[in-house]
């Protein structure tokens, strides 16, 4: 298993170094690009998704991880901060709670958080599960039942429908374990038509290239997973790799960085602006600080200082009227068919 950038004390473990590198490139700035099409300053539409990162600890160390997650990461959200999140959800009526990590299930208060969110009637609870966590320890074997009990929408990464590409990105044996976990989810009804239990998969390219057509890839995944493993799922989301953290390290180490950035800039699609996730999402980190998206969170770019920057001061009106903080990494969300945690945005 590779180690996180933090564990290696790698220069790119420092957020400032990443931002400085990204902003020093020769490409036209993302701000200029937005100005030319009349979208500067970039503002939210309606805040519909409350994405909470409950910690950076993970049982996997994927090569492309934008969080730099891994077993050595000790940043974990406390129950007190979770309670503040629940208070916001109760008061603001934001309809979707999107729980991410790391492996969110590793947070000792994860189940409590889901149960409480369920009790207060959050419209939709999403858990971004890496699948292998379900098999990593007997105490997690009942997660499919737990998800079912709370009608959690499970969104899981599976970068390809075969072992070779999946394992190269996510680690040896991950594909096989993921297939077992998907079967466990199917067994309780996830992915079954009319069960009301949604199981979505996330595809991201296994290298320095853009994702292909989401619908075509969804057809491929469905056909292959059904034929070879008898697995069903609902939707496939294609997500472009963001040039930050471990993927940035990969790009630099393989001398793909300049070309990848150029590709993102050349593939800029103004139509993708409308559906940018920073326009309908607020991201919360393990300490309760607020960000425009999970990527900005990893770069340490908090929401604009004119808006509340911590969950304890949450104000929906002020946050809805904030200016979104942008940078060169944002080109990844506007390239081609667009990219977000909900998949392509410009189909």
């Amino acid at each position, binding site marked *: 298993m590779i180690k996180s950038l933090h564990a290696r004390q790698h220069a790119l473990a420092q957020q400032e170094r990443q931002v400085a590198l990204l902003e020093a490139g020769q490409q036209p700035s993302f701000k200029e690009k937005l100005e030319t099409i009349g979208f500067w300053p970039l503002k939210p539409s309606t805040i519909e998704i409350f994405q909470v990162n409950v910690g950076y600890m993970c049982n996997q160390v994927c090569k492309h991880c934008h969080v730099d997650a891994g077993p050595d990461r000790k940043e974990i959200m406390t129950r007190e901060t979770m309670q503040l999140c629940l208070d916001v959800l109760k008061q603001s009526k934001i309809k979707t709670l999107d729980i991410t990590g790391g492996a969110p299930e590793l947070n000792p208060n994860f189940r409590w958080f889901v149960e409480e969110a369920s009790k207060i009637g959050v419209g939709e609870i999403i858990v971004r599960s890496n699948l292998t966590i379900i098999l990593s320890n007997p105490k997690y074997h009942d997660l499919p039942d737990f998800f079912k009990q709370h009608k959690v929408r499970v969104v899981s990464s599976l970068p390809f429908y075969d072992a070779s590409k999946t394992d190269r990105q996510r680690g040896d044996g991950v594909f096989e374990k993921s297939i077992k976990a998907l079967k466990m989810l199917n067994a309780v009804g996830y992915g079954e038509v009319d069960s009301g239990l949604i199981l979505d998969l996330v595809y991201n390219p296994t290298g320095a*290239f853009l994702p292909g057509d989401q619908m075509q890839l969804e057809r491929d995944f469905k056909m292959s997973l059904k034929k070879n493993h008898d697995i069903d799922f609902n939707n496939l989301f294609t997500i472009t790799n963001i040039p930050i953290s471990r993927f940035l390290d990969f790009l630099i180490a393989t001398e793909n960085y300049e070309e990848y950035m150029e590709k993102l800039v050349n593939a800029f699609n103004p139509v993708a602006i409308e559906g940018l996730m920073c326009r309908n999402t607020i991201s919360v980190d393990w300490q309760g600080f607020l960000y425009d998206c999970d990527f900005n969170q990893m770069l340490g770019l908090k929401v604009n200082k004119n808006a509340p920057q911590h969950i304890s001061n949450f104000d929906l009106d002020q946050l809805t009227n904030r200016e979104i903080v942008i940078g060169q990494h944002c080109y990844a969300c506007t390239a081609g068919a667009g990219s977000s945690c909900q998949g392509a945005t410009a189909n």
Partner: protein
Amino acid sequence: MEQTYYNPADLKKFGNISEWEENLGKKFFDWYGDVFKEGALTAREKSLIALAVAHTVQCPYCIDAYTQDTLEKGVTEQGMMEAVHVAAAIRSGSSLVHSVQMMNKAKKLSM
């Protein structure tokens, strides 16, 4: 400094061919764009054909471009290699099938 006939950076300058013959260049790129649109064949099938042909004509620019394109379109590495084998099979087959002519000629000349 090492010099080669092919410079990878030249691929990005492909559009420059219109500079010296704008009308024909424009017609070529319009036609090229239409060729690769989804039609009776999918965009992915067309990309795989392009990858195979790229190997047949041994164009390093085309190999770079359509390796990336087929990866983006979700073609497996095995699928990409099978496409190259198809190109290689036709190429070698085309040599071998000409041996029938050789055999015909040899038989005609021989007692």
